[in-house]
């Protein structure tokens, strides 16, 4: 019995154990890894991906997905910079990014909930359109001379880089949504079994709109951080960032079949991916090999997810039977 408790513990916290193990290994294999500068560096690098991962997490838990987030980020980013350049107001720039993110995702939500387009297809369409819009708007050229706009991505709040500040705030918001709101709780039900969620009185359609809108807000913020960090409006930037976000989400234990996932798991997933990228660059691993390694990590994460799920179910069924038997026997006596 004790043994199985230990196993449960390991299972429940496996992602954090992997994270800690990885941290230790990184520290051992490379002297520079543990330097404060490098750690701040890693945190700054992984913040955009992790913010996107939270949006994807909400969606994947509810059985949805967003493949458009990289493109929407770019569109929101370039429009935000243009707004800033023409008004000179950072606030306007910031709000435009959020508005663009929300608008694109509102369209995603309409397609998904109203016209029953599979989320995969609807957001794939948005991926193309948003990217096209970003390129059209800039004529394919990078926007330059960002001036004060870089404060979002390059500034610091005390010792903490601004992107990390945003990531921490969004982590807390996401955690709060998932654990302390009825909306968050409903997402698990929607992704776990939509029919049952409807029959339990959950307004599934409205909730899907809300998820996409939150995802849009996150995408907009990520767009501001991304562009201001690189000090340019890159209409062809962040290609494939939806995969960055999804990878962190899935590695962090969110089930691709919906209904399962936690904020802290996703945060851990984001850090695992961030550490991995960082250590491979520190060690001078070439980018071909990096791709191979990342592919393997994703495959392993999903295999682990599926295996643990199967085992858990089997164990539980037997345990329930076991329990039944015991109680029955006790009752008989």
């Amino acid at each position, binding site marked *: 019995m004790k043994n199985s408790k230990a196993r449960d513990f390991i299972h429940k916290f496996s992602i954090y154990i992997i994270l800690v193990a990885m941290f230790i290994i990184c520290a051992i294999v490379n002297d520079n890894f543990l330097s404060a500068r490098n750690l701040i560096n890693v945190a700054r690098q992984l913040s955009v991906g992790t913010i996107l991962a939270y949006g994807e997490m909400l969606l994947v838990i509810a059985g949805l997905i967003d493949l458009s987030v990289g493109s929407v980020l770019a569109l929101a980013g370039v429009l935000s910079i243009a707004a800033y350049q023409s008004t000179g107001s950072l606030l306007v720039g910031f709000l435009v990014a959020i508005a663009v993110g929300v608008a694109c995702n509102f369209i995603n939500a309409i397609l998904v909930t109203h016209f029953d387009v599979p989320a995969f297809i609807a957001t794939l369409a948005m991926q193309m359109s948003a990217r096209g819009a970003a390129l059209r708007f800039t004529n394919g050229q990078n926007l330059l001379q960002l001036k004060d706009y870089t404060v979002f991505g390059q500034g610091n709040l005390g010792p903490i880089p601004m992107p990390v500040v945003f990531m921490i705030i969004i982590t807390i918001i996401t955690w709060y949504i998932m654990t*302390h709101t*009825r909306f968050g709780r409903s997402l698990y039900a929607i992704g776990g079994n939509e029919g049952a*969620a409807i029959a339990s*009185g959950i*307004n599934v359609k409205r909730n899907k709109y809300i998820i996409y809108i939150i995802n849009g807000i996150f995408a907009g913020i990520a767009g501001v951080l991304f562009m201001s960090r690189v000090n340019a409006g890159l209409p062809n930037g962040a290609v494939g960032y939806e995969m960055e976000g999804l990878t962190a989400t899935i590695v962090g234990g969110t089930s691709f079949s919906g209904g399962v996932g936690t904020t802290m798991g996703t945060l851990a997933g984001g850090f695992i991916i961030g550490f991995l990228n960082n250590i491979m660059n520190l060690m001078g691993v070439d980018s071909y090999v990096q791709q191979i390694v990342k592919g393997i990590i994703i495959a392993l994460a999903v295999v682990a997810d599926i295996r643990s799920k199967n085992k858990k179910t089997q164990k539980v*069924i037997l345990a329930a039977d076991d329990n039944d038997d015991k109680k029955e026997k006790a009752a008989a006596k």
Partner: protein
Amino acid sequence: MRVSGINKSFPGVKALDNVNFAVRKGTVHALCGENGAGKSTLMKIINGIYKADSGQIFLDEKPVTIKDPIQARDYGIAMIAQELNYVPEMSIEENLFLGRLPVTKFGNVDWKRVRRETIEFLRQENLPYKPDQKLKTLTVSDIQMLEIIKAISNNAQIVIMDEPTSAITNREVEVLFGKIAELKKKGVSIIYISHKMEEVFRIADDITVLRDGKTVETHPASEIDLDKVIALMVGRKMDNVYPKEEVEIGEPILEIEGLGSKGVFKDINFKANKGEIVGFAGLMGAGRTETMRAIFGLDPYDEGKIKVHGKEVTIKKVSDSIAQKVVMLSEDRRRYGIIPIRSVMENASISSLDKIIYGGRWHPKVEKELVSKYFEKMHVKTPSLETAIQGLSGGNQQKVLLAKWMLRDPDVLILDEPTRGIDVGAKFEIYRLMTDLVKEGKTVIMVSSELPELIGMCDRIYIMNKGRITGCLSKDEFSQETIMRYAM
């Protein structure tokens, strides 16, 4: 066929413990037992899906080893599973010849022969279908019939039927029983698994009871009665199958006036009173489920009024009816009931989030107390509150879902086929809960295809046919014959 000394263990539990039983040629042998008693495991061993740890299977007194279902088929063993596995997009003929398509001398599929033989089969069985019709256009019972035909066309000598009547109407059950009689005449043996005792006693020649993975007793059906079988199954004596108590009937709580939905149901009028259990009988497809779904806000309705406590209400979505304290337990537990991967606690609290998340915070303690309270009341058996609901037996899942609605303290509880596919013990507890509820002054509406339970539990029974209410019987008028007359 005979099996002897079969043992099978799964990690942590002994599923079968020295099981013995024998099936005589040309007879129906019923296998009874509660869920988890080992019936399915035993059948899977016979069908070659599982391998026994020890023990022997004999066919015509010759020891055989069955490695997989294909080998089982070669030995003349066919299994018709409870959950019919079929590809909806497949045509009848493809399904019928699945895995054994005849080939011409050139090695290509002989579709002409397939077509010819399929037409012949369909004609013999009086099934009004075309060979190239897709399976999804057929009714469940006809698909089942096809499975049986398939088994016979494979020259099966032993046909295993696992809960064959769980999804078909009474009339279709008659057709099935006719078929079984025909098979018996041909010398085919049938192993029949069912929770429905009436059926077992109608068709079984022998009855074997399994409990906790052991064969308890085998008797010829003529030498044993219902109470004895149930006592053997649960290991103790059950005094009364239907724990109905007399409750004072009060004023109407739910009144439906002229409810209709185009092409589905029409002109539905009924009342359900305080303290009353109202039954809804009818054949499958009579519109009972559809009517209840509309009242609950799952489907829209075009016309008519719904009154709760005498006041007209608008029900557009499920949350509207929950607000009126009218709730419904769906017949389709998998689609509209459980959220498989989430814990039993979350499944129970999902409709009462306002009671556990308020003031901007989640109150886990409140949730735990609330859920535990109703689980105790409902006798839910679960290893822990964190256990995923998919790990529970059907009966326990059903009790969790009932607890979910009890948390909302409903005035009207609509139960659609609440006892389908669950074992005798759990059935009894659900009946008892219904009794408790009406004693507290609630109203229960029970839709069921099992007439004995309607007759045993209800105060009034409405009968539906082709989307209309065709009759309403009060307690002194109850009889299976009368109900069936209105239903057809």
